[in-house]
């Protein structure tokens, strides 16, 4: 009946939870569950991606292990969630990357870094790689801007297409036939809920990570990571505009917008992932999908590496190590882009789509109630 044993277990749990409902104030998962009496795989994938893993329902549950009902919603939904990334991967031929994802990401990242290093060395005068380059266009003496833009543009476009296809499959599997994620107020609600990580707070008391004490700070670290990432993305976008519209070439002075954005973002991308890694190390094994630890760690490590190498490049861009640092940074970022559709990166997109679905459902429910009242 269910595609995997994790889905079958999630179905069992949702049946238990639906007859209890004590947790309905904690997050969106339980109210969404209450709108259903049966749980096909698509709905379970939706609920699993709606879950933010705050952990509160596990410690609040009177039936969690060692109770014989063995209710462990955070862990089982984490398993279903990770399985769903694989199930909706596009093209399906690459779905296998989600198995042993940590190893795959590490190998791809290493190859990318090596590729840039070798490329710089092979295509340039060996002296150029370890030379001191300053002033506008310094980076492009190692790699022409056109080549850089084409390579990263292509990688980004591919990731965009692959991820869009996956999200389409996911939406079709969870939504009602013919329904589209186009309700403007539902979209705005989902943007607010995702932007504030509304459901990563145990219903207001805080998240739980190490034990039942709500002392977890993953929300803060996630904000640093996410907004750090967005700032870095904005820095790149602004720099691209500078280049093509204003004809101003990188590197820019420290006070210029791309550098300010990139520096702030880079700091976020160092502190945020470092905090998330530390929290992961302390996480109660009971609520964790231990088999997928590699995927989580690889993704956080890639973000951390992008942050560290970016800041290092800024710090030492006028020294002989600029060349190797540039290769390192570009390698990490390129690896990040091409693995985007097959890494933990997708968690945010699936969760965002799940939040749109949830906001849409809530609106339909309220609309239905208003009609019933009238």
């Amino acid at each position, binding site marked *: 009946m269910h595609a995997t044993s994790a889905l079958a277990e999630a179905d069992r749990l949702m049946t238990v939870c639906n*007859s209890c409902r004590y947790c309905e*104030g904690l997050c969106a998962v339980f*109210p969404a569950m209450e709108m259903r009496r049966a749980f096909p795989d698509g709905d379970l994938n939706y609920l699993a991606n709606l879950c933010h893993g705050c952990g509160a*329902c596990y*410690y*609040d549950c*009177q039936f969690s292990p060692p109770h014989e009902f063995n209710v462990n919603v955070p862990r089982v939904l984490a398993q279903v969630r990770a399985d769903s990334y694989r199930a909706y991967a596009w093209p399906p031929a690459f779905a296998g990357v989600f198995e042993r994802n940590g190893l795959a990401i590490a190998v791809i990242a290493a190859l990318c870094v090596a590729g840039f290093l070798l490329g710089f060395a092979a295509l340039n005068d060996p002296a150029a790689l370890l030379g001191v380059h300053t002033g506008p266009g310094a980076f492009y003496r190692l790699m022409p801007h056109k080549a850089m833009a084409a390579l990263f543009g292509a990688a980004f476009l591919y990731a965009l297409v692959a991820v869009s296809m996956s999200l389409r499959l996911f939406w079709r599997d969870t939504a009602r036939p013919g329904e589209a994620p186009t309700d403007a107020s539902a979209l705005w609600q989902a943007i607010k809920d995702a932007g504030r990580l509304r459901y990563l707070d145990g219903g207001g*008391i805080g998240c739980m990570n190490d034990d039942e004490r709500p002392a977890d700070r993953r929300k803060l670290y996630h904000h640093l990571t996410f907004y750090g990432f967005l700032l870095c993305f904005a820095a790149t976008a602004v720099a691209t505009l500078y280049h093509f519209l204003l004809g101003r070439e990188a590197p820019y002075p420290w006070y210029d917008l791309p550098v300010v954005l990139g520096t702030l973002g880079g700091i976020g991308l160092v502190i945020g992932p470092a905090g998330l890694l530390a929290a992961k190390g302390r996480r109660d094994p009971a609520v964790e999908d231990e088999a997928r630890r590699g995927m989580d760690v690889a993704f956080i490590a890639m973000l951390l590496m992008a942050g560290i190498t970016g800041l290092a490049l800024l710090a030492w861009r006028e020294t002989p190590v600029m060349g190797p640092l540039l290769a390192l940074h570009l390698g990490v970022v390129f690896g990040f882009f091409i693995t985007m559709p097959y890494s933990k990166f997708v968690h945010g997109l699936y969760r965002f789509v799940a939040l749109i679905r949830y906001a849409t459902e809530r609106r339909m429910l309220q609309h239905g109630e208003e009609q019933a009242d009238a």
Partner: protein
Amino acid sequence: MAEGGNGSAAGDGLVDLTRKFDVLVVGGGNAALCAAISARRSGASVLVLEAAPRFYRGGNTRHTRNMRCAHDSATETLTGPYTEEEFWDDLLRVTGGHTDEDLARFMIRQSKEMLPWIAAQGVRFQPSLGGTLSLGRTNSFFLGGGRAMLNALYLTAERLGVEVAYDSEVVELGIDTGMFLSATVSRGEERVVVRAATLVAAAGGFEANIEWLKTYWGAAADNFLIRGTPYNRGGLLKTLLDHGVGQVGDPTQCHAVAIDARAPRFDGGIITRLDCVVFGIVVNKHAQRFYDEGEDVWPKRYAIWGRLVAAQPDQIAYIVFDASSLELFMPSLYPPIEATSIRGLAQKLGLDTGALERTVSDFNAAVRPGAFDHTVLDDCRTEGLSPPKSHWARPIQAAPFYAYPVRPGITFTYLGTRVNKEARLLMADGKPSSNMFAAGEIMAGNVLGRGYAAGIGMTIGSVFGRIAGREAAANARN
């Protein structure tokens, strides 16, 4: 039982039981923790002895979800006012007058302070849960349920410096003419004598003590399911009564509801309850109906069916309904047993096929037409049938047919210790104990001698727990 992977047991194992405490709290639920926190906030040194392992701490509080407190106006989570007078009227009605009016009115007045007080101990509230709209005005729901409430209370107690020892069952008390001297504690293999200036007894009732239940119910108690943990054995209650503490409440009585017969023997909690009696008929093992399924609205009806089933042979019954009702009530843990015919259903239930077919067809023939509405006392009833079904009677005819097997599910017992407004224990001769107090289910019978109103157990526990802790701390200083 092994410690679950549910967080670390801070403090336990390191607690020094040889020092003399100001206040010894026996028990680990809402009443015990309110007492411990209140005593500690009054400056006393406090030891809490919980008989259960850490995961199962808190007795019946684990399974609660709300508390009923009087309040004069709507709040963020309550839809309207609930006056002292209305609370009293409700209490009078559910107990049928089996209450101590003076003490009950005192508790209701005190309950007004409890919502902010409990919130100040870290407990969060939320609007009433889906499917419980009828309680949205009167009852405050705990965000995350009873175990979340307990976690918050334990965390606060821990931060204040209350010592907590788990797996620590009090097996004997040293009491001399109403004065508590010491408690003998069983911790695994070892026995420890703990001394304290005062005692707060907050260790609940004896609903999980099957042998004790059997002294009143005989072999029928072997077929009872216990809705809470196996640790609610009433050991402290028995010890206190043996030492001459005054008794309150009918010892033979317990709160019993009909729950799914497939539930585990202990600790099935809320999810094994069934709300569907109203939608069908209920038959015993001989496939005979035995009570009016449509007598009254659900909150009133809910608590009588446990007792009704307990009186049936083998303490088993079956709620039988058809496809038209399947989605009209809250889902429960176990799926209903399903068959395409009444005959097939009888076979699956192990009932006499002919008898069930006759019972259903007799019922169907007696149903008079009406406008079905399960939210009010509607006009769908039977005629010429004994026992009748007074409301919500609709023929059982749309396949597939369904059944839930049910047994009595015991929630709590009414026997308790007598207390006064200081939560101080009264001895059998009426004299107040010099240093013993009680709170929670162990003294609930003073206020709730019979019946039940949702969330009132938590009110009794919090109000008297807070008072007991404060009074015990003051007592210890003198």
